[in-house]
């Protein structure tokens, strides 16, 4: 009986009765308090509406039961496996934990699918034992949930009275639930930081991993095949492409913002601003395709044309089919709306009297912008550029598709070049075994990337905040 029990879908077995118990408790609680509150004036004397008593009783029943069930979900599997392992014959456990794990996994798989006997006596006996243990654990879990639910119901019921502040308890529960939701953001950050830190430490302590200085200052990167983990070429490539992108995005974005906020008619602005923001809504993989299929060949042709000029050496430019310039150009286009909308905000935040004053002194509009508005908006614009740089550093798909994978340190923008994000994707795509230095090095790169972008973001957000306070 325990065996068949082990195969039943546990989710429905628990959730359905739990929901039923919740509904029952709700109606029961409401009924009870309504019965207490009979009479013409009594209902006014209830501390909380009957519905809240119902909710309270339902929560008092369901929460403890769910808690026990969660405990079961977390610990039952480990318990079953450990008991099974402790019963296995010595010659099997002596083969090391990996072999044992493999064996137990196969047993669990067999038991779950209720497959036919294999003929191997030990294996079949293990399967049977596993099913029994599993069934026992399930039975215990369900009985525990039942008792917890019944206990919660019993205690909750005794609380119900006319003066019982059921509503306050419900409020508290809602607030707790909302807080948990808000805390998920913190948990995400913690998860990112912890996983990056742990894997990075592991990377540096691996036998074939590099030392920290080798990683940060080495100039030889060959993670795919060898064990050279000098990341300087990657940092160089990342910065070079980000710089190229900024060369496009900063002037274009800034001048667009100035024109839109100071020169254009409201109608023109109403049309053009959304169009510019369309650029930000295009998925990066689309930009990557555009960069690789249209811009990269153009860059290559241009480089070949330059090489063929009579006064240049024939090997002046690398003229590769994928190039830093192609990726940087397109990334710059992607970042334009980022800079233009942020700069637009800060330019609009400059108080009107400053403008009026400058114009009244006889300045032309461009002089007013150059000598009054831009200096006043400079901190905000720098913050926008910092945010854009952090965006460019972390951008992945454009460089994966258009920048190439060679770890080079070269100032030639038509050469292919690799970046931190490119290497992370290259190292982690496909089969990931978490024990090779090759895979784990991606986390060390991610750690650097996360640290640098976080630094930029914090500085930029600080500047924006302070700036906003100055003019508000």
């Amino acid at each position: 009986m325990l065996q068949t029990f082990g195969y039943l879908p546990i989710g429905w077995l628990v959730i359905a009765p739990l929901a039923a118990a919740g509904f029952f408790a709700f109606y029961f609680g409401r009924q009870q308090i309504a019965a207490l509150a009979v009479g013409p004036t009594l209902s006014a004397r209830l501390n909380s509406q009957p519905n809240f008593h119902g909710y309270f009783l339902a929560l008092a029943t369901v929460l403890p039961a769910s808690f026990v069930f969660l405990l079961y979900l977390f610990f039952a599997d480990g318990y079953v496996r450990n008991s099974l392992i402790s019963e296995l014959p010595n010659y099997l456990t002596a083969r090391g934990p990996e072999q044992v794990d493999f064996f137990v996994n196969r047993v669990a798989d067999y038991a779950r699918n209720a497959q036919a006997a294999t003929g191997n006596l030990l294996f079949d006996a293990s399967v049977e034992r596993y099913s029994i243990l599993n069934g026992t654990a399930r039975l215990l879990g369900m009985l525990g949930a039942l008792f917890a639910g019944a206990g919660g119901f019993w205690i909750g019921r005794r609380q119900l009275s006319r003066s019982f502040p059921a509503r306050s308890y419900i409020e508290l529960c809602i607030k707790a639930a909302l807080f948990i939701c808000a805390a998920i953001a913190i948990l995400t950050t913690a998860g990112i930081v912890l996983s990056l830190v742990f894997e990075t430490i592991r990377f540096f302590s691996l036998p074939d991993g590099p030392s920290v200085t080798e990683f940060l200052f080495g100039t030889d990167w060959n993670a795919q095949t060898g064990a050279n983990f000098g990341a300087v070429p990657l940092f160089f490539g990342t910065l070079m492409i980000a710089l190229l992108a900024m060369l496009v995005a900063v002037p274009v974005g800034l001048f667009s913002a100035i024109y839109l906020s100071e020169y254009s008619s409201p109608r023109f602005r109403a049309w053009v601003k959304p169009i510019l923001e369309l650029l930000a809504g295009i998925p990066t993989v689309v930009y990557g395709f555009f960069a690789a299929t249209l811009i990269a060949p153009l860059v290559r042709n241009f480089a070949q044309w330059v090489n063929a000029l009579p006064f240049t050496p024939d090997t002046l430019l690398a003229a590769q089919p994928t190039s830093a310039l192609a990726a940087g150009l397109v990334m710059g286009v992607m970042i334009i709306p980022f800079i233009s909308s942020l700069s637009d905000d800060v330019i609009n935040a400059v108080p009107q009297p400053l403008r009026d004053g400058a114009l009244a002194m006889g300045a032309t509009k461009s002089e007013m912008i150059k000598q009054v508005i831009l200096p006043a908006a400079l901190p905000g614009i720098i913050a926008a550029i910092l945010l854009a740089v952090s965006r460019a550093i972390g951008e992945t798909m454009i460089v994966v598709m258009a920048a190439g994978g060679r770890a080079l340190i070269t100032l030639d923008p038509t050469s292919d070049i690799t970046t931190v994000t490119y290497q992370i994707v290259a190292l982690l795509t496909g089969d990931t075994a978490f024990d090779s230095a090759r895979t784990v090095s991606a986390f060390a790169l991610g750690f650097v990337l996360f640290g640098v972008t976080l630094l930029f973001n914090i500085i930029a957000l600080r500047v924006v905040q302070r700036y906003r306070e100055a003019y508000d």
Partner: protein
Amino acid sequence: MTEPGPSPEAFAERRLKRRHAAERRFKLYGQLAIGIAIGFLAILLFSIASKSVSAFSRHMLVLTIDQPDLSTRSDLAVTDLNLAVRDELVEAFPEIANDRTARIDLFGLTTRLAVLPLTKSAAEDPDLFQAPIEARFAVSDDLDLYLKNEFRTHRTVEVGRAGRLSDTRSGTFRVTDAGPDGFETFQRFVDDQSEPRTDILISLEGAWFELGAISGAALELEHLAGTLPPLGELGGAQIDAVVLPSVGENRKVSNRQIAYTMLLKQRGMIEKRFNQTLFTNSDSTYPELAGTAAALIGSLFTMLITALFAIPVGIFAAVYLEEFAKKSIITNIIEVNINNLAAVPSIIFGLLGAAVFLNTLGLPRSVPLVGGLVLGLLVLPTIIIASRAALQSVPPSVRDAALGLGASHSQAVFHHVLPLAAPGILTGAIIAMARALGETAPLLLIGMVAFISEVPRAPNDEATVLPVLIYKWFSGAERAWEPMTAAVIIILLTILVAMNLVAVLLRRRFERRL
């Protein structure tokens, strides 16, 4: 004494002119910047759209399969149907039944797996082959590209009248001119062809030849396809020449295959249709058979998980921060943290997914469940920020009125404030979903690049999503992948535009009410 300088008025005027010129230049820079940005957008959309056009149609080989003995078989495999297709093709060109190299060229017009759709319908309907049926098979990707691009630039010229046809070696023939000038006009035409020399095919009485040389008032021909006319006097039959746009060695489609294609087109056995398999098929290693169905459903499942996780959690977090939280260190940390999280590169979330969901929690790779959760964490800050802005825009009087009438704090929020903020929250949520739909990098790290040839049925089946499919097809070696990739991009952009339109309409519609 120094020379008298220009008068102060003239000086001032010059200065003013210079300043006005600077003003005009400055304004021009602004216009130029906007022009560059919009120009790039236009070029991007136009180049991708024009690349994608050819992928939405495809050439099909139309064959009538008349093989009743196939219906007696219960376990039809790809090979059986392939043999049937080859039988029908040989029937169309009976003259090559014994010519092995010609047969290989002919069978190369379609790929082996082109019969897969027919295999499927045969499995559903065992009586399919009782009567002759007309079936369509995708032609090979190279031939399809050739038909779409280069076939259009074929030039047909009249050569003259055929005199006497004789064979010189096996497969090589000579034909003399029935007219007076001994192909001299044609000779001049061939000589005028610009370098590099292109291949010329000759059609004579329904047979196709490749032009070898013109010598001694006769054409030296190599037979390619079609039934040979009888040797001897042809009595002035029409000779036509087709000038191909390229040389045989430079393309994937051989001259003989082009000859077959032209014969098949004449007989109406190759036709161009809308490429519906782009939407109904799943991924394939052959571009002509690949489709987006699995990726579309995979994207749907992933978005479902993302929405189920990120939207409620995001709204509740915003409600807590905006309506319940008192100013404290903890809420301050949460706020700063959310703002920073919104700017963390998306690939970092992929690393988080790989380390926590796959490695620590042991969830399976390549499934929409994990992908949806990772994307959910990615867009959570966006949803929280948008929801907070929407909640802030609800006038405090609504809150105060509800509290004044005796509502509890949560009643005031959930019954009165939240419904009024709903349009703004929904708009933010849709925009966040659109962002998640276009995200690629984090999904690469959790293994959603696996080759998926079947439509996923549940969020824990292996799947891929549209942006990842774009990346994968982009990496494909065959040239035919490029238009296919562009087509997927157009599909993805269409969905994104639709989502953003919904968001804009929602905002317009509810803006008036508040």
